[in-house]
């Protein structure tokens, strides 16, 4: 921990805070296990088991980033950080990356248990893991994007629901599992869908995508999202008057 505390960079501050709150850290790691493992251990249909993991990842990413950001904005500390010579684009990038990685660290123990309960080809295990990471990056981007427009954690919940509901539908978690036409085209642009496909394979369904698709397309889409979120840095960090 001495490499992160005292922190010499914004992202290290988040890592230091993450590990400094021991009880909160325990809860953060336990709640995905509590939600995911019983589902994975049950004989629930594979489609829904995959959907549960997907929903947990999306919620953790979107609400985590959005709410912690609005809290820091209300506190004024984020504006103070923004007045240092650090580039606001860089700060936005660090916020996004560190939150996504920390969310991933939270989910990893639950994912490992899933892989133990449902042994799958290594390439699909890696694809599913990457799909979850891509989902967390996307979800954090959405959370940060929302924080550009509100400083109220309650509004984050509202806006996130409005944005996520159609994306989850398009991704085919519960309905719209065999889309055609425009819906099929749109699905290709939502990283959640690739994670869902990979997780379904882990849970025993036949693959409808290739591992290559799960690695490459979400990576490209996420890079564009991250770029877009970094562009919002100056607005995100400006005082709300």
């Amino acid at each position, binding site marked *: 921990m001495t490499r992160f505390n*005292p922190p*010499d960079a914004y992202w290290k*501050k988040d890592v*230091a805070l993450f590990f400094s709150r021991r009880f909160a850290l325990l809860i953060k790691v336990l709640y995905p296990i509590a939600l995911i493992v019983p589902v994975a251990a049950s004989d629930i249909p594979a489609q829904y088991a995959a959907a549960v993991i997907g929903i947990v990842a999306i919620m953790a990413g979107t609400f985590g980033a959005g709410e912690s950001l609005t809290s820091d904005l209300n*506190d004024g500390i984020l504006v103070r950080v923004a*007045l*240092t*010579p650090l580039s606001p684009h860089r700060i936005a990038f660090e916020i996004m990356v560190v939150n996504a990685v920390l969310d991933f660290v939270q989910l990893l123990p639950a994912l490992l248990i899933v892989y133990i309960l449902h042994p799958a080809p290594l390439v699909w295990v890696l694809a599913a893991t990457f799909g979850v990471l891509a989902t967390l990056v996307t979800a954090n981007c959405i959370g940060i994007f929302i924080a550009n427009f509100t400083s109220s954690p309650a509004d984050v919940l509202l806006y996130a629901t409005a944005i996520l509901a159609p994306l989850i539908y398009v991704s085919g978690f519960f309905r719209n599992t065999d889309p055609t036409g425009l819906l099929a085209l749109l699905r290709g642009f939502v990283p959640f869908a690739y994670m869902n496909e990979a997780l379904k394979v882990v849970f025993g369904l036949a693959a409808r995508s290739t591992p290559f698709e799960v690695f490459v397309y979400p990576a490209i889409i996420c890079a564009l999202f991250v770029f877009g979120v970094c562009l919002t840095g100056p607005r995100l960090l400006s005082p709300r*008057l």
Partner: protein
Amino acid sequence: MEKAVALYAKKLTRLYESSGRGVSDVSFEVQPGEAFGLLGPNGSGKSTLLRILSTAIAPGSGIFRVGGIDALKEKQKARAKMGLMLDRPTHYGDLTGWANAYLFARSYGMEEGKAKSALAGLFDYFGLAEYKDEKVKTYSYGMGKKLALIEAMAHGPELLLLDEPSLGLDYTSRLSFQRKIRELSSAGAAVLLASNQVDEVEALCDQVAFLHRGKLVALGTPEDFISSLKGVRRIVARLHNPVEYSALKEVHGVTRVVPEGRDLVVHCAERSGIVADVVAGIGRCGGEIVNLTVERPNLEDVYLKLTGEALRDDEV
């Protein structure tokens, strides 16, 4: 080569659409090594002006330069030259005081060794050394304020922007703060101090600007301002008991009465017999005087003369 003006502001304007308030056409300069005081009551535009100068918000019009750098075009370069303590101090409560200060020092580009050395000196100076490893959420308001001062000063800025820096500090810490400001000024740093603590501004600042309803109404040295107030006196009466003192305003020559703690400060014209009349007036109000001093006017009186309004809200 001649050193650039530390802060050059010309015709800065920013009016909030919702309230119509803000600042309008504000121009001034602060030279390296100069302490510049900004005085004005709540709502006069001090905070807006500091937000603009800190680059937190952009002015609607006007320009300003920090150390010769156009702060509107090259924000990051300008920010690197500034040390800020604006509004209320905010920190990461779950990090220690040291971790907070270190993060800011490194964010300003300080190398590890220099950051640690500068911070150690400042923590020691402000009496926070023994609390440096405690989480900031356990700090008192005054300790948080000292930490914010440390964060503002650690990287050796060319320009310090401080908003009510000593408000909430105990007497000893306030003296330490003032000593440090003098030290930094002597070393060539420019200081812009927005405050309603007129004694402090008078004691520290080489120049003072008065803001009134968003406009800069006067600019000069404290000495010149105060010496311009001939025929004005302040009678400071320490009372044994609080009293309803509004009747004091009826005394001929009294312009204003302000309670300050146990003191009643009576601003009045200098005329024969006025001290006796004020004492009698306090007596009629039921006040029991335990100490009485007659003082020369201060910057509060200057503001009153310039604008017809009080610098602070607590007058009758």
